[in-house]
């Protein structure tokens, strides 16, 4: 039942959606979240009239820019380390950090039948496997942890090629130069099921992707609204459909 209060709230919501109130949200977004963030930003924009400007990149590169005063209101990191560091270093607003998605690692290849991906990895019948830089990208670190757990690190080491971000790791596979890639499920969620093998999550540390409001956006109500929107049911449904989990 929609009562008088409901209608009143609706009116406020509609009023706040008027262009006169339109504000700009500048968000730095981890490369693996590119597709979802674009969709969520469009939905948020349609619902509120606030413009969201997204800058994509490797989390490490984005964070380096933020420490030097890059004009971002919010950071959607690929890990939970950079957001914590941001708060510790006074660049993030305390109490605004939350997990917006938990990433899933996937083995991907357009060349192999990956129904049993572990067997393909163990057979080792490939020349190059692409991963993201394990020192900077959480998916790269997860990939290394997983290879370690399977005892494949030594055999795979000379065949590992590193992309500066998870997007580049995928580009190496798409170009055909690397036969296999350990990438984010979200990047390959549209591919045929036989080309993807979902790495069982117990084989790598959880990839918690955290968001945080940055100091530059502390007084930007639209930025807070965007972060709230990311935690809402509508956004969560989109995020889950895109290949992430959320507990």
């Amino acid at each position: 039942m929609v009562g008088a209060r409901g209608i009143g709230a609706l009116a406020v919501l509609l009023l706040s959606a008027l262009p006169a109130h339109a504000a700009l949200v500048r968000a730095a977004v981890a490369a693996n979240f590119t597709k979802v963030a674009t969709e969520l930003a469009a939905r948020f924009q349609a619902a509120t009239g606030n413009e969201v400007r997204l800058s994509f990149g490797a989390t490490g590169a984005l964070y380096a820019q933020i420490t030097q005063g890059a004009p971002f209101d919010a950071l959607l990191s690929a890990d939970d380390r950079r957001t914590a560091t941001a708060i510790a270093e006074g660049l993030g607003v305390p109490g605004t950090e939350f997990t917006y998605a938990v990433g899933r690692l996937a083995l991907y290849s357009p060349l192999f039948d990956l129904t049993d991906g572990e067997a393909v990895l163990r057979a080792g019948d490939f020349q190059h496997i692409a991963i993201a830089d394990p020192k900077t990208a959480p998916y790269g670190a997860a990939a290394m942890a997983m290879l370690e757990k399977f005892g494949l690190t030594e055999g795979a080491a000379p065949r590992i090629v590193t992309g500066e971000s998870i997007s580049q790791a995928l580009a190496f596979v798409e170009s055909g130069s690397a036969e296999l890639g350990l990438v984010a499920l979200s990047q390959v969620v549209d591919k045929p099921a036989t080309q993807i093998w979902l790495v069982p999550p117990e084989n790598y540390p959880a990839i918690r992707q955290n968001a945080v409001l940055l100091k530059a956006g502390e007084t930007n109500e639209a930025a807070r609204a965007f972060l709230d929107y990311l935690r809402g049911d509508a956004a969560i449904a989109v995020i889950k459909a895109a290949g992430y989990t959320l507990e």
Partner: protein
Amino acid sequence: MPTLAEIASPIALTAALASVTTILLLLIGTPIAWWLARTKVRWREPVAALVALPLVLPPTVIGFYLLIALGPYGPGGALASLWGARTLAFSFEGLVIGSIAYSLPFMVQPLRVAFEALGEEPIEAAATLGAGPWQTFARVAAPLARTGFFTGAILTFAHTVGEFGVVLMIGGNIPGETKVLSIAIYDLVERGDWASAHWLSLGMVVFAFVVVSAMMLIDRRYGRVTG
């Protein structure tokens, strides 16, 4: 301060890449520049424009095309299959091919200018004295155009050392194989090790200063002899 072992490999690799590229480009660039300087055909300028393209194109465009060309569905993959590999990407050989494409104008342009500055006279004089085309080139044209060779070689070497975008796109960041200095610095900045990044970057600044100074010295000392 970074340990010696950490920086020795990217420095050695960068020096090797720049040296190999410079030597190969001297061999490839000289006939191209000679032809561009001497020919009268109408499609000379389109060819010159083609050679100069890397000056204008973003490294991402060159890197993107190279990634495809070096891969299993391009000519690079066909070449690589001769020794059982699938791709030339992610290899030192691949970086050399990329660097040659990327630095071609830096070799050809100064050489062409030097060859054109010779004019017809010394070449006709050599021919009159009975010198064949090879002899004319080796004993008359090349010594007179030495500024062009110095400039081209230094520019090519320096430009290859300074290469980043192309290597980033086709290299795969393999230590000892494709992880050159510029990539190593980018890596250090990304992972927050700014102290090491500072040391390597400072080294690059010093190197660049030495190169530019050397260029100016050569220009002052020899520029007027041939120019």
